């Protein structure tokens, strides 16, 4: 890591930021697409129940496993439920799982990491071992273990996902804060009478955000994939709840027999969402990166 102290002012003029955001968007069409996709996903999550043409839970054995048609855009599943409606409805739950999990691990991880990076000493040693312990587990297996032990509810899936993401934030935050704790602007802030907590929270931490943004974007998508993986093992959310991961996992068994639509459409939805989150993170990085702004 280069130890260049970013000379970013901590108070950000709003206008400059907006202009810059617009500039980045116009320069980078993919980021613009990502923002648009993200907006669509959020809209679908909010309006899903209104948009869905059928009841996502209502089964009908007579129309089971029908291929995509005008009536059922994405076909029907083995219980005769409308796949399109289920894909729409699932958006909210998937978004909820990933946003909550990532928010949780970001908050806890960033706090632990910043404290460790700023004060060092025994705080660093204790949190460091704690994070090492989590990291010493194969992450997905740890998530499986937690969900298996605590029961497969949405909350537990969120906790498990949050726990396995925690080390990433803690480590990044620690490293970024550590670099900056003796930087010129931090010392200046301290000299002007700020307490340690203030210096950390308002001066150093905002500058450590950009690298964490990349992490957040990756983790948002990963959180959904993690839930999907748990479903594949059989530890996902409970049926009949519509959730992309479960739908792909269950549909996967139907691919060989030719009923591809069961897995492919929720798979595409999943992929689109993860795709959007990932590109978004990159875009956010470009917007927030102080070096690009000067």
């Amino acid at each position, binding site marked *: 890591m280069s130890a260049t102290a970013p000379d970013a002012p901590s108070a950000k003029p709003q206008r400059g930021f907006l202009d810059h955001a617009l500039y980045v968007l116009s320069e980078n069409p993919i980021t613009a697409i990502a923002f648009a996709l993200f907006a669509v996903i959020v809209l679908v999550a909010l309006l899903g129940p209104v948009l869905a043409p059928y009841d996502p839970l209502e089964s009908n*054995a007579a129309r089971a496993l029908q291929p995509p048609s005008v009536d059922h855009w994405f076909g029907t599943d*083995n219980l005769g439920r409308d796949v399109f409606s289920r894909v729409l409805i699932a958006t909210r739950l998937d978004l909820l799982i990933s946003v909550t999990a990532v928010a949780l691990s970001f908050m806890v991880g960033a706090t632990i990491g910043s404290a460790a990076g700023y004060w060092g000493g025994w705080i660093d040693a204790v949190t460091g071992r704690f994070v090492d312990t989590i990291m010493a587990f194969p992450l997905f297996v740890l998530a499986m273990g937690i969900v298996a032990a605590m029961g497969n509810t949405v909350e537990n899936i969120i906790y498990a996902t949050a726990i396995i993401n925690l080390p990433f934030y803690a480590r990044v935050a620690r490293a970024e804060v550590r670099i900056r704790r003796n930087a010129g602007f931090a010392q200046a802030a301290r000299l002007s009478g700020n307490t340690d907590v203030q210096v950390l929270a308002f001066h150093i931490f905002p500058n450590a955000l950009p690298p964490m943004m990349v992490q957040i974007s990756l983790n948002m998508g990963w959180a959904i994939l993690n839930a999907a993986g748990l479903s594949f093992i*059989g*530890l996902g959310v*409970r*049926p*009949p709840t519509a959730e992309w991961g479960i739908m792909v996992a269950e549909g*996967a068994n139907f691919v*060989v027999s030719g009923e591809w639509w069961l897995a492919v459409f929720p798979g595409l939805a999943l992929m689109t969402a993860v795709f959007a989150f990932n590109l978004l993170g990159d875009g956010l990085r470009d917007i927030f990166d102080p070096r690009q702004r000067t």
Partner: protein
Amino acid sequence: MRRRDFLKGATVLGAGALPFIRSLPASAATDGVVVVAMGQTINSLDIHRSGTNRPSYQVAVNVYDRLVSFGTKTMPDGSLSYDYSVIEPEVAESWEFAADGSAITFKLRPEGKFQDGSPITAEDVKWSFDRAVSVGGFPTVQMKAGSLEKPEQFEVVDEFTFKINLLRPSKLTLPDLAVPVPMIINAKVAKEHITSDDPWATEYLHKTPAGSGAFKVVRWDPGQQLVYERNDGWTSGPVPAVKRVIVREVPSQATRRALFERGDIQVSFDIPNKDAKELSGTDGLTIASTPVENAIYCLNPNLSFEPFKDKKVRQAIAWSVPYEDIFQTAAYGRGVPMWGGPSATPSDIAWPQPFPYSTDLDKAKALLEEAGYKDGFEVPLSIALDQSDWMEPTALLVQENLAKIGIKATIEKIPGANWRTASLVEKRLPLHLETFGGWLNYPCYYFFWAYLEGHLFNSSNYRNEEIETLTGETLYLPVDHPDYAPKIKRMIEIAWDEVPRIALFQPALNVGTRDMSGYEYWFHRQLDARGFKT
């Protein structure tokens, strides 16, 4: 070293042609090799060991012999099935009951040989039976079902004569000698590996079979494959037609289907109902779907859950189940419907036979109202994670119809490890799905396990004085006894009226074969390769 030996064996097969097996899918079959794929894993070669799982029972069948075996019959669809009504000689060439019914005496084949060439003697039989009744766990319980309970019952009369002293006359004793458990182990070999901690050589036999059966195990890679090779000196039956049977463990059912359709395997064991339905009629593929004897897939309301104490509530549930939808969606029409019986009193003692319920939501609502649950109640509906292929669609359909009569069910998936404990041992699941099937094909045997209080498969905590008495009276009674049929009919009538178990359908075991023949259905639902032909 084992690998090298195996290598030599493979050269005999014609190693030169092997790499091109993909373009010649039948070549493996013509070489007398059958490749079988199954989803589960074999965890021991010794059925008596505690922790041995069901798929491992096939080793007891293929590698060991028993005193007697069942016959073979052809089913209406042309597939083969074991025949419960015929008991045939295996290691024993003949047997007779003592005049007073207090003992059975078996004459062993004098030419009988173990796979190492040593003779099969009455000593070996006694040691094996002593072991089965002493090691505890499943083998001991299964032996007990045939009134085979303690070593003192087993007597060596001379080298080739073996006698079982009976605790009581029971129609279950002889059939229980033909199930996989009372297999005959080469005691001379096993005794060499006895230690003070391990008086029954379980550690040795766990990995190294010592039997007299039709196949030898030449290779076992746990979690991957088991390779059987024909025992050319088999003395208990005609030497198998195939030289080698390779059992591969392929957990993904989609992969198994692809392998089977592409012809890379000759047998796909226990295929899902959906695949069985779709692959039936495909050229070159044979799908045998055999209804599993004495087995019913049930929906069980637990009497320890307050509302289900009332018979009317249980009946209401039975009237609310969408039977036809479940049969089509969860079983894909494979198996036998167990609903819509014509009368509330059974006309014969066939078991299982359709229960006198069908889908009638109005009747269900009326019954609920009579019972004082007009506004319904909430109840968790539990299913096992490892059986979710049929349990999940079934539970969803049941849940949907229960909602229509005001009962709010939430589906709970319980991991495999917890399922047995929760459903069968602690019997604490208020409403759940259950799959018991009895190996010994008698209605009284089913009732013994599934309707008597405290018995393992009575996961509904049901108790009925009359059934308790009648089951006790019929369990050992011969089927042709004049009292048998009336008593059984009465038991079925009560079970129908009180419905602690709501029958959904009788499941089927689906096995796909191609480029070979000779697959035979057995009550133990495991692979029996002895009759395979290519």
